[in-house]
């Protein structure tokens, strides 16, 4: 975040608003399409944004999702006000979830969200402050780079 972004836009997300959960991810997708980004980049970012958005809807009170466009990557930060994540290592494991039955009835809450975000992004970081909130930062590179491994 040290460099200046070419473009940035911030989207508010409301906690507990299941009816609208997903609207921010689809609005950001439309923005990324306007920017003419590769389809795969848009898809990976959109999946990450949707999972992050649903986590705010399910667990936090409110958040902002900020999209920052750089020449070689798209960065997203989701800053929420909420309970925070008590044990991030635990929450990052597939299948680990504190979701309720009502959340699972909407198709989320299987403990796959954070792993899905990490898998779809090139950079990923979670920070949490108990009782204050959670900050997710992730990025997808828009120009192909050699993958390690």
């Amino acid at each position, binding site marked *: 975040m040290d460099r200046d972004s070419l473009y940035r836009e911030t989207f508010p997300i409301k906690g507990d608003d299941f009816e609208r959960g*997903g609207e921010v991810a*689809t609005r950001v997708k439309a923005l990324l399409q306007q920017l003419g980004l590769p389809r795969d980049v848009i*898809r990976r970012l959109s*999946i990450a944004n*949707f*999972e992050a958005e*649903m986590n705010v809807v399910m667990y936090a009170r409110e958040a902002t999702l900020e999209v920052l466009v750089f020449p070689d990557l798209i960065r997203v930060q989701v800053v929420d006000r909420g309970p925070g994540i008590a044990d991030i290592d635990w929450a990052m494991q597939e299948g680990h979830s504190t979701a309720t039955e009502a959340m699972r009835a909407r198709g*989320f809450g299987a403990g*796959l969200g954070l792993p899905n975000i990490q898998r779809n992004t090139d950079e990923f970081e979670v920070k949490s402050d108990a009782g204050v909130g959670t900050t997710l930062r992730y990025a997808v590179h828009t120009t192909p780079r050699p993958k390690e491994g």
Partner: protein
Amino acid sequence: MQLRHIVSLLTCEILSGEDLLDLGIDCCFAADLMSDVLASAPNGALLVTGLASSQMVHTAEVADLAAIVLVAGKRPENEALAFARQRKLPLLLTGLSMFEACSLLSQHGLRGAVRKE
């Protein structure tokens, strides 16, 4: 397989995408859990689901899925239908169960989506 073939195979009601029935579909992913779809469904897949909430259409939109079949006679929530129409995302309804719908599609040559690692 063309979308119109799927419509007749599963005797679907077409709620959205009437003008997109020529669309070719080559694989299918069936789930009620949208995180599973987001994790594993390849783009262009047909989504077969029992989830009627707006998250079902948002999932198809963000994951670039081709079309949705809602099974077991469920009706989509109003926002879900409005969103599908707005994004020109075909949304089909069938009275068949998830199992019946999937086995018919499979018998007629539609393959399951390969799980990505």
